[in-house]
């Protein structure tokens, strides 16, 4: 099955949206969730997922806490903050504006 890289600049938005939908999740779950909800189209490059999460921690969009998985493993769970929710709205509306514009350009061609 062909898999596409995530378009540049949308990783934050995808993580934020995933967390907004699924509540608390650890990194592995986030990666899998993005893959699953995009019907296996979007492949998260795991190497960039974790640094992105660190930057989001710095920005205060998410908080992290250690917990245990259903399989009884230790994992770090991420949680959306109010600032993160606000950021999600900003990014989504920006993304929609851009894709809308792109779609119009392609449509007229």
């Amino acid at each position, binding site marked *: 099955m062909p898999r596409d890289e995530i378009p540049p600049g949308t990783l934050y938005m995808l993580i934020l949206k995933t967390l907004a939908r699924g509540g608390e999740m*650890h990194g*592995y779950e986030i990666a899998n969730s993005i893959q699953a909800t995009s019907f296996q189209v979007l492949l998260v490059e795991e190497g960039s997922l974790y640094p992105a999460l660190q930057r989001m*921690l710095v920005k205060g969009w998410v908080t992290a806490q250690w917990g245990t998985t259903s399989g009884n493993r230790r994992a770090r769970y991420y949680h959306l903050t109010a600032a993160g929710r606000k950021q999600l709205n900003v990014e989504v509306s920006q993304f929609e504006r851009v894709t809308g514009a792109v779609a119009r350009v392609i449509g007229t061609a």
Partner: protein
Amino acid sequence: MFERVAEQYRKLRALLQRKRLHRDFEQEVRAHLELRAQEYAERGAAPEEARRLAERRFGNRLALSEQAGDAWAMPRLEGVFQDLRYGARGLCRNPVFSLTAVAIIAAGIAATSSVFSVVDRLLFRSLPYPDSDRLVSVGIIHPLLDGEFLVSGDYFHLRAMETPFTALTSWRGAARCDLTEEHPQILSCAPVESTFLPAFGIAPVLGRNFTNGEDQANARKVALISYGLWQSRFGANPAAIGKTIPIDGVPTEIIGVLPRDFELPTLQRADLVVPQAVPFRTPSQGTPLRVFGRLKNGVTVEQARAGLGPFFHSAMAFINPRERAAARVALRSVRDFQIQDVKLASWVLFGATFAILLIVCANAANLLLARSAARQRELALRVALGAGRARLVRQTFLEALLLSAFGAAAGCALAALLLRVFKLVAPATIPRMEQAALDGRVLLFTVSTTLLCGILMGLAPAAVSPRPEVLTGWRASSCPRIGVRRFLTTAQIAVSLILLSGAGLLLETLWRMQNVAPGVNTGQVVTADITLGLERYPNSLRREKFFDDLLARLRANPLVASAALSDTVPPAGFVHNRPFFVLQVPGQPLLERGEGGVAAWRSISPDYFAALQIPILRGRGFREEERASREQTIVLSASLARRLFPNQDPIGRVIHFRPDGPDDTVIGVAADVDNSGIPGHPDPEYYLLRRSVTDPQAGANVSLAARALHVYDGEACLTVRSSARAGVVADWIRTEVAALDPTVPMTIATMRQRVRGMSDRLRFNAILLTLFALIGVLLAASGLYGLISFLVVQRTGEIGVRMALGATPARIARLVVDDALGWTAAGIAIGLAGAIVTARSLRSILVEVRAGNLVLFAAAALLLFGIALAAALLPSLRASRIDPIQALRRE
């Protein structure tokens, strides 16, 4: 904006838990890999293969971890930390340099902080009254009394006027009073107007203030007691309110307790605050009152002074027109009123500490410069490797600040110690000394001086940038910073000279004060102030008998040379006086009312002149048998005799006390005694015989009453001259007094202590300033020594060449010394100019010393020059012993 701050805060917190952050990240990634491997394994891969697949899907872990770390990075702050670590390591590598610098800075900061903790209370901190900067003291300054006052009639006039004050009040100054109970106690009473406490914004912690109705002469006596008295005498029992205690034999009801921090505007002790009951008078009449007002909002002191101009003009009416030139109007803040004569001294000390701080900074900067010169290669290397100028400057500043921080820590400890020493040596007359402490304000001051010091220190080395050419050249010398270092050394010498000459002036004043003959022989005299309470000694006869018995008992001791009684003793403290115009010599023109200043007087027993060894210049002193006679005799001081009887023999002449006093016959002239508090400037004085007052009611004492203005004869000062040790004599006095009446309170001091008390404050200033001057000179000398040693090391090669070309060691030594002395001379010239300016501003606290004392300045300059020469000599000798072969080989 807020988000950015929050982000920085999160980063800052992360900075402190770097390790945890890193560990979390590692564990997180490992957990992810394991989960992924498990997923592959569940799909059927072998465990090894599953792990490999998971790793491959994840990507480069190492680069990843670095990226994650970057998210948290604070490059600037971390750069500072790095520089700090680097600086600290550098300082540790060079412990002699670091310790010297820290010690120098510590000395400077200790001196400034400890002195600041003392002067802060005097000059800057707010007084314990609400809105204290609006409180002013109002009055007229005239030689009659110390400090400004208004006569009561004028005060009532002022009250009735439209004034720039929201409140106006008066009091009469603290006076001693006695609690005449079973355990008698000498107390300090403050007679005040009923408006006094409200005007100052003071509310009693218990009970109430007295009313205007209670502030009348015939009212029932009431009093507020101090917090301390309430604690000590009444065990802090609220039931003390309403109790009646005998004050000077008069039953007085306690109606209130003053707050713990209560303070009189004169800073005198007050155990009791009582109504002053000053009767209404018409203007220009009445008793002197100390007047305080609270300025209306927005009114400045100058505006109030101008607005009250007409009033002040009328308030001077009681002074004789010819004397009015000596009178001044005073309207000043309570703070200025309180520290009147210490104000200048405080500023002098404060200035001196800043001078020390400057020297310290200059010295430390010099050390840093020397170090940076030695590190030129290192710095140049760093520049060559790409370090920016800003980075190097920051590095230099951080090092300076690091040194200052360590210096400040050591300095604080030293300051606490110094403050203890101050408190030990400080005289009781320096106001608020006991309150001085190293608290938050002082620490804040210390921190800011430390920063200032660090910046000043860092400035010099940072100003000179290292040049990469140093690396290519074959020696690192002749850099511009030598100029900076010479300048700094010159400045140090100049400032030390100012300090040295200032200290010299104070010391000379002190020396003069102690060596001006006070007119009395202070050796081997012990004094005791004795008070007899009215309750146990209700009449004059009982009081006289007590004193007669006491003198007889003391004289029975074969080791007591003489024992005398008087109402007061010179030189310090209180002395009775009368306006000069009341003394009239028949046949001479009358002085006008208020003209001529005042004459001091004492009532003495016949032995007084013998006990204090005051020579009788003409005629004779009083005789014992005269005490019973009705003959009125008087002894004049030499200056009074000269003034009343210029070029005439006063013996046998008569002095009339106006308007209806007695006629006293002059029987003798005694030598002048220092009685004014200013050595060498005795006020005119006369002596009356302390004699038996047979029956006050019958009027037999009219003459004494007229002359003595109702001086209470139960208070006296006993003076005992004996060859025995002072402690032993004091014990004799205590024993004899106790044998007569164990309840009599008294204060014992040697005459010498009393005289010393006069110059205590000056001594304190002189000691401090001398200390500062010594520190300054020492630092300047070490700075000069350091500079010249450094120059010698730098010029080793040049000296080697000179020697190889035939210069003698003596010439080499002179070369070095000449250079040093040139800079010293420049410093001394600048310092002398500064010293003359300083001396001018010091004029008012220098007694008998001309401010432009050239001999003293020359001596200070010479001393400094000598010290500089010594400091220069050592390195120059080293220079003259340089082996040319070695020196040239080193290059």
